[in-house]
Each structure stands twice: as structure tokens, then as C-alpha cells.
């Protein structure tokens, strides 16, 4: 064993030495959720950061194994709770891949619109002012799905409902308003010397380190690595969209933030393209063994629909034995679902490769690039972990 000493309590020091152990959290405004950091410091200089995670651990993966495939959707919502549509999408793709089905075109567009909208929400949290615009997205979500946060809108084989009337217009309206405001917000920070002093050349991560650390998403691209799953291994209808993959070179806190801001712009352009291209048509696969009936009236007229509905609700549907790993580009990075099915109605094992979990680890390894206490906060903010996903 190498010389890792475990910090398990804050020592009662006389105050005569400069060695300080400081506790940060579990509640801190720079994190989503509860994260406790123990900082070993020499004066104000950071020597070691030790995250204590698990305060939000809910045993999601254990629960997966006792839930049917449809029941799992609400659980995936609660991973990265800022972007439930992305989480739903990744999971749905895994199950659909084993079933050998594909969602209808319109459903794919709806899923992508929702995922990109939530992508914005994820990136918006970088600034308090954007809370106003976040509300607009929340209103949109409420209009489309009926709830603000935990949407559970995806289904295996499509989405739950079609977009309500007027939703397209509202989405485009949001895109226009927000596109104009992004530049305002960007100027607010980009010309702010205090902000720049706190983020520029802080927490630099080289491309090599970023890869070894398994960083993904904007955190990896800010270090100059050109990889975006949406472009390189396109799922759903991403191959029909035109977008730029934002790459920056320095890999410091500023670049990670800048990457996210620029990606919001790309997101908006993708949403616009989706709304323009979206065809009319079905939103769920036409297979009563897998999908609930879209037309709920049928439940009171058709005995067959009724029986299928009962079977689906009571027992779920069987997924052929096999295994699959699907990865999508979630706001925080590569969100992977590794599904092993034994042919029953419940997954044998469903592992979530949570991007925030991996990204947060960078905090421990890169302490040489973080010098002062204030840098830890900037680093934490720029890595942007969501604890719901870290702790699962």
C-alpha cells in the first residue's frame, strides 16, 4: 500500500502550526447537492483535497434490479436531476438496442429537443442571472410534460405524448430570447476582472491528464480533446443536425466555463433545426407488448388494448437476454448505461457510467494546479458535478 493517510476527523490543533484541516460542506452553493470536502492546507495553500461523497447515495442501481423496465425511467430522472430528458434518453436507447427497435422519427426529434433544452439548463447554472431563463425552460418542460423537473417523458420506443399545440412556437420563442441574452451574460463575466482573476489559469488540466482522468464532455473539450459523442457516434437524429463541437486549448476554469457558454449557443441552433425538420407522425412504436396505448380512449373501447395495458402495468415486458453499453453526450459528459438482461422483465444489472462521478475525481488528482482555497471553489464550479449523479 502506498502512503495514503485517511483524513477522518478535523484535528484539535493548538493553532501554533500552520497545518490546517478544513471542512468544506456538505452544503455549499458551488455544488448541486451535498458534497463534503476535507482540505489539508498549509495556511491558505491547498495540499490535498479529499472529497467525501455518498451523502446522497440512494442505491439506485440496486433499485434498478427490482424495477420493471418502464418503472426505471423515474429513477433515471433523479441521477443528474438538472437534465432528466438526457438521462431518460440514454436509458431508453440501451433498452431499445436490446429489443432491436427504434423510436419513430418524430419521437427522436422530440427527445433531442428535450435533451438539448435540458443541456441549456445544465450550463445555465453557471450564473445567477440565468435563473430567469431557466424558469423559461422549466415552463416549457411543464407545458410539454406536465412537470418542471422530473419529467420521465421518454418511454421505451418513443416518448409519452406528442408535443402540445403551440409548443413549437414557444420553443422557438425561447431560443430567440435566450440567444440574445447569452451574449449579455457572457459580457457580464467576460469583462469582469474579478471573475477573470479567479478563473484564468486556475486548475489547468492538460489533454493527457484529462484523458487519463476519464474526463468527458465540456471538461474534456476545454483541454483540447476533440470528441463529442453526438458527432462521432451519432445516436437518434444528431447526424441530421449541423453543429460545431466547441474545443478550447488551455483547460483552465475559464475555458471550461467558456466551453459551456458556447455550447449553449450550439444547443439553441440544434433546437431550432430540430423544430424545423421535425416530421409529423407517430411518437411511440406500434407494439402493444412494449408501449402503452397513445390513444387512451381505446382503453374503454378495446378489450385487447385493455389486456395489453394490464399486462404491461402489472408485469412489464421482457427484454431478450444480452448486454449492451450505450453512451450519450449528456450535459456533464459521457453518460453510459451498461445493461445486462437475463431475458426477464427486470434488468439483471444496469450500471450507470455517471459523468459527474468521474469528473469530480479530478479534484483530488489535480491539486498541484490548485493553489489556494479560493481556487478549489472555482475548480469545483467549473467541473460542475451534480451530486445526484455522483452518488447515485
Amino acid at each position, binding site marked *: 500500500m502506498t502512503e495514503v493517510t485517511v483524513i477522518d476527523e478535523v484535528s484539535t490543533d493548538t493553532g501554533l502550526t500552520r497545518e490546517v484541516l478544513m471542512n468544506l460542506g456538505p452544503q455549499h452553493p458551488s455544488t448541486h447537492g451535498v458534497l463534503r470536502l476535507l482540505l489539508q492546507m498549509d495556511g491558505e495553500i491547498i495540499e490535498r483535497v479529499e472529497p467525501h461523497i*455518498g451523502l446522497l447515495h440512494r442505491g439506485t442501481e440496486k433499485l434498478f434490479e427490482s424495477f420493471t423496465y418502464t418503472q426505471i425511467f423515474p429513477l433515471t430522472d433523479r441521477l443528474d436531476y438538472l437534465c432528466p430528458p438526457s438521462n431518460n434518453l440514454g436509458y431508453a436507447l440501451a433498452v431499445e438496442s436490446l429489443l432491436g427497435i427504434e423510436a419513430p422519427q418524430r419521437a427522436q426529434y422530440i427527445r433531442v429537443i428535450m435533451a438539448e433544452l435540458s443541456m441549456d439548463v445544465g450550463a445555465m447554472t453557471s450564473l445567477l442571472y440565468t435563473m430567469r431563463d431557466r424558469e423559461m425552460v422549466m415552463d416549457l418542460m411543464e407545458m410539454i410534460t406536465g412537470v418542471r423537473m422530473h419529467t420521465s417523458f421518454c418511454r421505451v420506443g418513443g416518448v409519452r405524448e406528442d408535443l402540445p399545440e403551440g409548443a413549437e412556437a414557444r420553443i422557438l420563442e425561447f431560443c430567440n430570447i435566450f440567444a440574445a441574452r447569452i451574449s449579455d451574460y457572457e459580457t457580464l463575466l467576460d469583462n469582469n476582472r474579478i471573475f477573470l482573476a479567479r478563473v484564468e489559469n486556475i486548475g489547468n488540466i492538460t489533454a493527457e491528464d484529462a*484523458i487519463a482522468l*476519464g474526463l468527458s464532455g465540456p471538461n474534456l473539450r476545454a483541454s483540447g480533446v476533440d470528441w463529442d459523442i453526438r458527432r462521432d457516434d451519432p445516436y437518434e437524429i444528431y447526424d441530421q443536425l449541423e453543429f460545431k463541437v466547441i474545443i478550447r486549448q488551455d483547460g483552465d476554469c475559464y475555458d471550461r466555463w467558456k466551453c459551456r457558454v458556447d455550447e449553449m449557443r450550439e444547443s439553441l441552433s440544434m433546437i431550432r433545426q430540430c423544430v424545423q425538420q421535425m416530421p409529423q407522425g407517430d411518437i411511440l412504436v406500434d407494439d402493444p407488448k412494449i408501449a402503452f396505448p397513445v390513444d387512451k380512449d381505446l382503453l374503454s373501447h378495446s378489450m385487447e388494448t385493455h389486456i395489453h395495458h394490464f399486462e404491461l402495468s402489472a408485469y412489464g415486458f421482457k427484454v431478450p437476454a*444480452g448486454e449492451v453499453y450505450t453512451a450519450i453526450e449528456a450535459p456533464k459528459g459521457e453518460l453510459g448505461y451498461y445493461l445486462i438482461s437475463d431475458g426477464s422483465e427486470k434488468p439483471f444489472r444496469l*450500471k450507470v457510467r455517471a459523468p459527474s462521478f468521474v469528473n469530480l475525481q479530478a479534484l483530488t488528482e489535480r491539486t498541484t494546479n490548485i493553489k489556494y482555497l479560493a481556487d478549489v471553489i472555482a475548480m469545483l464550479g467549473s467541473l460542475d458535478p451534480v451530486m445526484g449523479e455522483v452518488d447515485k
Partner: protein
Amino acid sequence: MLRNGLPLAPVLLPFGQRVSIDNSATDMPCLLVPPADLVDLCTQLRDDVSLRFDFLSDICGVDLHPKTPRFMLVYHLFSLPHKWRLRIKCHLTDPPIVPTVTQVWTTANWHEREAYDLYGITFDGHPDPRRIYMWEGYEGYPMRRDFPLRGYKDDYNPMGAERPAKEGGR
């Protein structure tokens, strides 16, 4: 996309019969490797110029109870230069011990702590072998298939299941 045409043969040659290719899954190629060859194989896969599997996506523990060998570790690799994916499976008997791959990919650190925490898989040579989600002193490994969904009954968990008479655990 080069899904099944990976130039794996030169890397696998020195391992002879010990490393085999598993064709059961269709989404990506899969290698079966015994624990003793794991680190060598991973290092080769990462450093070989025609492969460059430099990105470790995920390590997933699996409990196959009541089958034997009981445990399985699944590594998902990704090659950034070539955009290939590869799966490595490593079967482990009970009690499960496997060498760590933290020196191959730094990111393995927390993934391995997670597998230790939830499945009780010991990673030989791991720099920081502690639980990650559950607290120190927690008994049992919650993701094992014989672990009850509600956990075991204790002061904090009055709704839990009764512990079996003979202790299997640690």
C-alpha cells in the same frame, strides 16, 4: 465504423489461449481475460499504436450468484484517436481479488472503490482501498444479489431484513 475489424490479433498473440474473444454481444468486441493477465493486457491495449485504448469509460462489477465463478468485472474502453470501443470481462471466484488498473488509467481509482464498496471485490495494489458511498464500518456489500433490497435490520433501519444466522460477509 470499424466495430468488428479491430486489429487486436498482434496484441493478443503473446497471451495465447489465456485471452479469448467473446462474441455474445453485438454492440462492441469483447475480450475475456483472467485476473492474472489483466494489467498486462490493459497496458498493451493502451500503448499499442494501432489501438490506443487510452480512455477508460467505466468499470462495472457484476454478481452472477448463484453461478460460479460468482463475480465479474466489466471494463469499457474507448480509443480516442480511433473512436473504437472495447469491452473486457474478467471472471472472479469468491472471495474476489483482482489487480488494480489505476496505474494504467488514473480514472480507475474511484471506479474500483465503487466496485469494492458495493460488491466487496478487492483490488490488489489500489492506492486508496476504502469504501466510497457507504460509511466506514458498514457491514456487507449492498449490490450483491444475496443482499436484501431493504438492507439488514439495525438501529437505523428497523424495516430491514433479519440477518441470516450464519454470517457469510466479511
